[in-house]
């Protein structure tokens, strides 16, 4: 079988699967993946071992919450929290389909119950509260559950004096929850005020893509904001802006690198270094400064708390 035939058969196989049953992770990650940017054909296992970053052009593929957690948490340290929350349908929303049907579809595609996974973990030995959004679930849109889980995680960080890391990826609001979706921006931001006042560290990691209500709330409120290379990040979507200003936007507009230049993110960090950088930032801020008694060894206390779980 030559490559062309192989692709054709894979396509057929995929299509067949899509109508029959949810894809397992194994099946979806077929043997070969073509780089979106440089078009190189990559052996999927290698790609995965390389953090899903193209070894040729450094293109950072989107990854789901599960893989992200694998990449940045110490093995086995992630303890999920608040997984018992599920979306309701407060408006009885129907567009061309009902909201409950769309939720089922999202879960079938992503294997997740919601667009954010929350919990505590160790990152190179440093304990923290971690939220990871998954664009693959309902476009990473923020409904009541995303807002609630994130808020509860912030409260958990406050309770345990843990640093907080949120890895964002979102298309924006969950329109099907109407005003409730909007209000999650206020809820999460307000909780972050308490965290801020308590002097706890919050690192926001922005990944491809992060837009709308998520950007305009917790994602932009980090003490440090890290973006992944090439990630597109903004408030308004590219198309909306182009329609408004009636001109084409430059290619680099709203990329991580563009945001760095415009002072919106602290650093652009390749995925392979993310874990290390997160740990360094957390360790740096956990250490009591020379002779300063008013800043306790938060990190260490916290690690004990988490490992006691």
């Amino acid at each position, binding site marked *: 079988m030559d490559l062309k035939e192989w692709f054709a058969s894979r396509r057929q196989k995929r299509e067949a699967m899509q109508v029959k049953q949810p894809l397992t992770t194994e099946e979806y990650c077929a043997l070969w993946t073509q780089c979106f940017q440089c078009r190189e054909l990559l052996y999927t296992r290698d790609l995965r071992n390389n953090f899903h970053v193209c070894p040729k052009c450094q293109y950072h593929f989107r990854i789901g919450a599960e893989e992200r957690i694998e990449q940045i948490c110490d093995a086995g340290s992630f303890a999920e929290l608040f997984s*018992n929350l599920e979306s309701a349908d407060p408006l009885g929303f129907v*567009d061309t389909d009902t909201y409950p049907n769309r939720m089922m579809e999202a879960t079938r595609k992503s294997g997740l119950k919601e667009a954010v996974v929350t919990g505590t973990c160790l990152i190179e030995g440093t304990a923290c509260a971690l939220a990871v959004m998954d664009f693959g679930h309902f476009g990473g849109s923020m409904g009541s559950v995303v807002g609630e889980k994130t808020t509860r995680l912030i409260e958990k960080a406050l309770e345990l004096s843990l640093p907080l890391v949120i890895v964002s990826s979102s298309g924006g609001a969950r329109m099907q929850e*109407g005003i409730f979706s*909007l209000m999650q921006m*206020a*809820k999460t931001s*307000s909780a972050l005020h308490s965290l801020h006042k308590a002097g706890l560290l919050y690192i926001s990691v922005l990944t491809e893509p992060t837009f709308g209500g998520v950007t*305009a709330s917790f994602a932009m409120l980090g003490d440090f904001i890290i973006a992944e290379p090439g990630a597109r990040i903004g*408030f308004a979507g590219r198309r909306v802006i182009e329609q408004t200003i009636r001109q084409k*936007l430059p290619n680099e507009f709203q990329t991580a690198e563009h945001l760095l230049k415009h002072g919106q993110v602290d650093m652009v960090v390749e995925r392979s270094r993310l874990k290390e950088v997160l740990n360094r930032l957390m360790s740096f801020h956990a250490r009591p400064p020379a002779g300063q008694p008013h800043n306790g060894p938060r990190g260490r206390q916290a690690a004990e708390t988490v490992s006691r779980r």
Partner: protein
Amino acid sequence: MPAQLEKKIVPLEFEQPLMLLSQQIEALEKQLADNPNPDLEADISQLHEQYNHLRRSLYANLRPIDHLAIARHPQRPYTRDYFDRWDPQWIEVHGDRQGADDPAMVAALLTLDGIGVVAIGTQKGRTLRDKQQCNFGMPQPEGYRKALRLFHHAEKFGLPVVTLIDTPGAYPGMAAEEHNQAQAIAMNLRELSALSVPVVALVTGEGGSGGALAIGVTNRILMLEHSVYSVISPEGCASILWRSGEKVAEAAQAMKITARELFSLKVVDEVIDEPLGGAHHDADFAARVAGQAIAGHLRDLGKMSGDQLREDRQSKFRRMGSFIESGS
């Protein structure tokens, strides 16, 4: 002659039947003036009655999209109209101190029913030039930063804050993105949530998305009867979910954007009645009623301590959302 015709009010599409009837009445009244006739007089009187009946039933049965139309009526009172009526001597303050003054966000010191407040509101602009200057009510990051400066000012001096919301949303422009619109909104959400002074918002027209919420994290959220508040414009929602620009009415219906629906959902604390047909039929009256309602809430809130006010506001938004929690 019906009052709204005297004031040259632009009729909305759903108001066409009313307008036709009113034109008929006008024609007959002219005829009557030229040629007095008791029968005609009786007819006219009956038509007046019919007109009033039609008017009441029309406004009692508005669809969400009709409310939206009223909320966006070009003659609807804007923030400056309310400020002018509440305190003709209101003092405007300008600027974010960092490079710009955004006319789409008006900041004021004013006395409302005897209470000195910091008042902030989005402004759409009345004339074409105003509209352009105000970006049709869409603030830039600099506008949100001006608001934030005034929020902190209010905190420093223990002054209550009143916000008026009437915006399609934050401006989706290139410079707005580059100046970090998202961060400007997020900072306002965070900081506004934690003020230790009473904060009351009134949605006077359109409450558009994060751009509205950025001045809407308040102890009380009031809405004028015909105002709307939504996570995305019905047009945007229709084009994304229905992939059709024609499904705006359906989107407006599905999202529950009207004052009364949001009151039922417990997101909004009070719906303020407007003059029949909308606030633009009697701006003085609308401003008086709205001002009294806000002042009432400020007086109530004034009984709380700073910590209680912050706690009240934060727990209000803490509760927002609807989800199912299974036993874990």
